[in-house]
């Protein structure tokens, strides 16, 4: 089986006055046609920048400085802005993390979605407007006809997020990259969006990369999960294997921090002590070592590589010499 997207050794640097600071440090990930990959990781670990680099939308002063990202036989990182414009929307749909900054505040939302359709699908305006209204209904916005003429600030936070989802899906892309698309959505509407994406996946073989911190949501949506920490992949596993055998100490810490409907109210929640290293200030060896309770000399001697986890799914790999010991 050939991969739809293959990221190898991606590095991203921020230009600072003191010199470049590395934020993404050698990410390798692949995604098959029709597969959905969940990405989780600590706030600030480089999830958004990694995905923005694929579609050429990195902010000023931030650049992909190494690695490749092969999509449909071509390296996205080597493409010109012009070539990328043709890829964005129609081949790779993107749902941005921050609706207020990616929606045009002075343009009616119906026109914004229609504009995307006119540009990406060469639709005529009346057809595009009709399709835009359909899309609003698909993402569960009540009175879609009336809402077509609303401005972004007239919508609730969750409605704005759903407008972003509608725009990401408008071009019927082969790959959908969704960056925290449901943070403001209640469980019922979240479930509806998950069903919608699943349905599109099975009908059109769309692949999905879904960045989220919501482990419950991702458990029901993803085939595979990659756990990021400080710009590296520390665990990559089929979803069931990850929940059955969470292995990297960071992954275990995340799962332990999860409040559940059965724990003691008002009790202190477990959280991982300390803070992640800042870009450009990463410690030698494993980036999690300063916060890890299992740390050994081997951890700081060299950057741990992804290794299969003994006793788990063969595709389950973890970058930690301590918890993968005994690997054959």
């Amino acid at each position: 089986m050939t991969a739809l997207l293959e990221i190898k050794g991606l590095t991203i640097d921020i230009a600072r006055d003191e010199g470049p600071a590395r934020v993404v440090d050698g990410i390798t990930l692949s995604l098959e046609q029709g597969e959905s990959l969940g990405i989780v990781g600590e706030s600030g670990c480089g999830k958004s920048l990694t995905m923005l680099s694929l579609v050429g939308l990195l902010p000023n002063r931030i650049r992909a400085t190494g690695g490749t990202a092969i999509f449909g036989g071509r390296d996205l990182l080597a493409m010109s802005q012009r070539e990328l414009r043709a890829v964005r929307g129609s081949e790779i749909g993107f749902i941005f993390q921050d609706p207020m900054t990616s929606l045009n505040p002075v343009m009616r939302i119906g026109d914004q979605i229609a504009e995307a359709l006119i540009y990406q699908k060469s639709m005529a305006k009346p057809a595009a407007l009709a399709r835009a209204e359909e899309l609003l209904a698909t993402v569960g916005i009540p009175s879609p006809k009336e809402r077509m003429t609303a401005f972004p600030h007239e919508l609730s936070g969750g409605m704005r997020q759903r407008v972003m989802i509608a725009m990401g899906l408008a071009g019927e892309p082969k790959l959908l990259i969704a960056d925290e698309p449901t943070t403001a959505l209640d469980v019922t509407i979240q479930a509806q969006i998950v069903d919608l994406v699943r349905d599109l996946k099975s009908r059109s073989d769309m692949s999905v990369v879904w960045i989220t911190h919501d482990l419950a949501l991702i458990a029901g949506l993803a085939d595979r999960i990659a756990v990021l920490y400080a710009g590296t992949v520390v665990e990559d596993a089929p979803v069931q294997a990850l929940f059955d055998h969470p292995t990297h100490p960071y992954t275990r810490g995340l799962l332990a921090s999860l409040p559940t409907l059965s724990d003691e109210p008002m009790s202190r929640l477990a959280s991982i002590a300390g803070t992640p290293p800042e870009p450009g200030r990463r410690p030698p060896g494993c980036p999690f070592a300063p916060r890890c309770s299992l740390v050994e000399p081997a951890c700081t001697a060299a950057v741990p590589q992804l290794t299969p986890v003994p006793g788990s799914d063969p595709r389950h790999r973890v970058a930690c010499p301590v918890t993968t010991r005994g690997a054959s």
Partner: protein
Amino acid sequence: MTTLLEIRNLSKHFDLRLGAFGERGARVHALDDFSVDIAEGETLSIVGESGCGKSTTGFAILNLHHPSGGSVLYKGTDLAQLDEDAMRPFRRDLQIVFQDPYSTLNPRMTIGEALSEPILFHKLASKADLPARLAQLLQDVGLSARFASRYPHELSGGQRQRVAIARALACQPRFIVCDEAISALDVSVQAQILNLLLDLQDKYGLTYLFIAHDLAVVRHISDRVGVMYLGRLAELAPAANLFATPLHPYTRALLSAVPEANPRAPRNRQMLQGEVPSPLAPPPGCRFHTRCPLARGLCRSQTPAFREITPGHLTACHAVTSPTATNWETPA
């Protein structure tokens, strides 16, 4: 227990102009008849479907959107009657962490400047103590002091959200509306912030109106929970009661939809039937009747009263007369 805010019949309507030329008018019933006493030192959470009016409630209480009706009594003053000038003395006490952190941070101010502004304005620290105070605030929300020299666009989504929390805390307020304030944070940082909020509450008796969609988080930190449906409060109860014995049919459906962090967990969602009605034309009678499995004739014509079923546990439903039975023979 002293009441911090006494909210009565608070409502907020938005008038919209529809059509390409604004030729048709329409009214959004974003919030109607919201009444609750918020006690000093408590955490009251508000949950409900997207668009049901949660943010509007927070905005109306703080008079950030001028209410269309009702009153908000704080220290003997009805905030709903005040204009922006008259509100100013109350602003420091009453803070909000907005759902959309980007829109609250001035893009041309560094994080340090944004945090210093309220501290200096309200004279909460001397110039000499300021750097230490900033470092403490940033550390509390899990960011290093070096973030003080960064601009908002140089932060990740979750980092920005934490700066917004630090800014609200910088004012040393008595009441904070947290509108989806931790929704962009990974669970470990989320836990850290929740612990911080609980500690501050213990130490200073802070009061929170906590708007969130993550029910596990809500159960964890709330004293009481209010469930809203289409602009109205449907149920209000101590957190433990609400999760153990939800009374309103909408609350029951909502709780059954909670996903579990386990791919094998059975997903027996009791999905709500029917379209989400629009706040542009809310259904008459009980606003939930178009999707309610228990709806009868009465529900379509009469708005159910908000009644106390067991001590402290209130709901607005014609069918619910006791915690165990749904009684249609003797509707109240």
